[in-house]
């Protein structure tokens, strides 16, 4: 799942899904709690996000590609991550010693986060802390963060993708 187009060849493998968020129509989460309390598991905004979060939930391996801004995901990826809260319940569980939301049918996933842009060391440290928190809230079993410049994105994605093919 990427915030910009990536030239990847998936071939016939139906277990792999490529999502270019930049080509989709995804509105900001309005914080209505509808996906928790009115239509549980389903966002009340019926745009492209509703096609994406079921894939996020069922995937056991993910590659997220995002530009970094102020040490966090930039707007395109952040918008989608916020719209993915239907995959959680309102209810709270105690997980790794902290209170977090209960997950619905969400596979534990190996995540590779390809974080691109001209990030400095401080931004990278904030981003590491962010993904460490995401791991608890987004059901990452294992994760790896790869910091790259924008022109290294395609090659890095292809390298990660080859690991899946092995």
């Amino acid at each position, binding site marked *: 799942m990427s915030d910009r187009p990536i030239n990847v060849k998936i071939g016939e493998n139906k277990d792999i899904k490529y999502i270019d968020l930049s080509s989709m129509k995804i509105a*900001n*989460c*309005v*914080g*209505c*709690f509808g996906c*928790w*309390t*009115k*239509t*549980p*598991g*389903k966002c009340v905004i019926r745009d492209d996000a*509703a096609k994406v*979060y*079921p894939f996020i*939930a069922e995937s056991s391996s993910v590659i997220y590609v995002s530009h970094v*801004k*102020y*040490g*966090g*995901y*930039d*707007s395109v990826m*952040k*918008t989608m*991550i*916020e719209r*993915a*809260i*239907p*995959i959680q*319940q*309102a*209810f*709270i*569980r*105690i997980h790794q010693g*902290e*209170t*977090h939301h*209960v997950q*619905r*049918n*969400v596979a534990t996933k190996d995540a590779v986060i390809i974080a691109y842009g001209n990030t400095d060391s*401080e*931004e990278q440290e*904030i981003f590491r*802390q*962010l993904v460490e*928190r*995401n791991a608890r*809230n987004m059901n990452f079993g294992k994760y790896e963060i790869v910091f790259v410049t924008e022109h290294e994105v395609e090659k890095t994605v292809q390298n990660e993708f080859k690991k899946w093919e092995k």
Partner: protein
Amino acid sequence: MIINGSPRAPKSNSRKYSEIFIKYSKLQCDYFNITKSNHHELIAEMEKYSDVVIVFPLYADSLPVGLLNFLKNLETNLPKNRPVISILINCGFLEYEQNCVAVSMIRYFCRHNNLPMGSVLMLGSGEAILDTPFRYIAVRAIKRLSESVNKRNYKDLTATMPLPKWLFKMAARSYWIRYGKKFGVSEKEMKRMEIEGNM
């Protein structure tokens, strides 16, 4: 100047927190919501104030995207007179520490744009605290935040419900069951494991 960065600003807890801040402030306070189309208007207003307090919820472990977009606009249109930026952030979890990454992001933004950073209040247990017997804890913390801005004696403050995690979990369950009832949705329905699919 108070800027509400919640996506549901008019109906948000952040609005209620802002009202408490204003109640205890001795400075003139003016309140604004961030919308998709008012960034330039807000930035022009910022010129007039010594202090800006941004009040917002934690969203997916960091800043709500509406606030992020506002900051990106602010970065490219910085006011000549730069106010001190204070923040009040609230999360729905018991641990106020879960707000730390978002605070680091704001600190990073301020440092890189030469905006002085003022006070920080991190609140835990945000969604429900104002409707519980622990309301006074949130009110007291916001009063302290307000006083610190008034006196320009900036501080880092924290507050949450003094509950063990298991009890917070139970209290949250009751809160959300009541919330669902308003829409005729049962606890069982709220706990459905399916995502999308047939409702």
